[in-house]
């Protein structure tokens, strides 16, 4: 195969060869990132470098928003004010009731000598931008390690659970929505008390309630709240509403579709719940090696 003469000028390896080298390098990077998570420190460092640039770019947007807010329509403001006043009135009544129930609950818990339900500390964060990665349902908020946000913290808005912090950077955090394909939230049916798990399916505005038997006591319109069984989401946060149930006798499970209550379609604020209390360590099964057993006993005692 000596058909082509040697090149007149020295040009280094051919483009095809370089393509092969760099493509292999890229594939290696992806494997390292996806399988072994070796590259998280690199991400952290880069995010710090990128942070001023991101602030710079979002500054004009923030200024424009500030100006529009300043000149917001008077009528709209009055309407908002009225609506908020009625809402405040309604919630004041509910709050009074809640206070009474809370007191009663505290007494009952004291009677039962149960663990007091710990109030979780929270931090308000602003949604900076939606995920530019179209393959996962994530967004980035403006609080990070500096504000004591940890990976795994639950994220809610005024309507219910939005998702979970999946990656923290020094000044930013990445939140994965519950509609992401890889997210699952343990829930409880408020009406029947039935426990289940809702899974995201990657589409906007729907969740799947999987592995529910055909005879399970679920109805369209049932509200689902977090069960807290996972130790990640505090119990009792609204998650979703059942909108469709398909009971097909040929399938092992009913096909149940839910609608998440929270939404992040617009720019807004979210609340990141910090886990203040650590759950007691999981007991180690007795088949483990003796040192592990000893450690577990110490943890329990």
């Amino acid at each position, binding site marked *: 195969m000596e058909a082509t003469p040697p090149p007149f000028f020295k040009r280094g390896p051919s483009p095809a060869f370089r393509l092969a080298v760099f493509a292999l*390098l890229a594939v290696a990077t*992806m494997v390292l990132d996806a399988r072994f998570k070796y590259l998280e420190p690199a991400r952290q460092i880069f995010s710090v470098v990128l942070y001023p640039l991101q602030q710079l770019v979002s500054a004009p947007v923030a200024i424009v928003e500030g100006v529009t807010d300043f000149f917001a329509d008077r009528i709209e403001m009055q309407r908002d004010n009225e609506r908020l006043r009625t809402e405040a009135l309604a919630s004041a009544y509910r709050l009074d009731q809640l206070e009474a129930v809370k007191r009663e609950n505290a007494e009952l818990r004291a009677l039962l000598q149960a663990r007091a339900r710990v109030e979780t500390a929270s931090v308000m964060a602003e949604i900076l931008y*939606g995920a530019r*990665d*179209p393959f996962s349902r994530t967004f980035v908020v403006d609080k990070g390690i500096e504000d004591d946000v940890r990976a795994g913290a639950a994220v809610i808005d005024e309507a219910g659970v939005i998702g979970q912090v999946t990656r923290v950077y020094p000044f930013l955090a990445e939140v994965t929505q519950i509609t992401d394909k*890889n997210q699952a939230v343990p829930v409880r049916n408020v009406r029947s008390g039935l426990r289940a798990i809702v899974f995201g399916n990657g589409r906007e505005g729907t969740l799947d309630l999987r592995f529910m038997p055909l005879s399970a006591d679920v109805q369209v319109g049932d509200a689902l709240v977090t069960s807290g069984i996972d130790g990640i989401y505090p119990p009792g946060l609204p998650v979703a509403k059942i909108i469709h149930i398909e009971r097909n006798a040929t399938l092992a499970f009913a096909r149940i579709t839910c609608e998440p209550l929270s939404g992040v379609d617009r720019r807004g604020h979210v609340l990141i719940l910090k886990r203040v209390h650590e759950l007691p360590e999981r007991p180690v099964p007795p088949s483990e090696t003796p040192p592990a057993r000893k450690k577990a006993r110490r943890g329990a005692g």
Partner: protein
Amino acid sequence: MMPAGPQQILLPVTTGLIVVTVLGALVVNLVPLPLNVLELRPDFCALVLVYWGIHQPRRVGFSLAFVLGLAVDMADASLLGQHALAYVVLLFAAIALHRRVLNFSLIGQSLHILPLLLAGELLMIGVRLIAGDQLPAPGNLLGPVVGAALWIPLSALFRLPRLPKANPDRV
């Protein structure tokens, strides 16, 4: 085939121009957008990379494409290396096509760019499917279409700093 329009001898491309345009594309990629507009957003980095790959194939290297891809991956919090792979392939295609593409009018050129950008997008979708992620919304394939349409204003814009001075004798 004749080149479209009268040919004009342009000033040589400086390394500074390439660096500034690539950094500019990275910054433009970072502009926060509402979620519904996000789907239509073209990948400016890919577009600028293809531009220089076609106009100055000897000046942009595969290492630049690779590093730029990694930067975009980190900024987007996507799988580290997916953009790097796509950009390296895009640059190779751009270099392979550079003799042909510039013979066409700007519209013809942008029709060459469209399949390139689409292929880059599809490559990334394939990689993410292998990695176990979900298919993105079909609207995301509109990004490359917008990108190809932007080729025309982009070409005009990148020509501006290279236009010869009106009278070279006057300083």
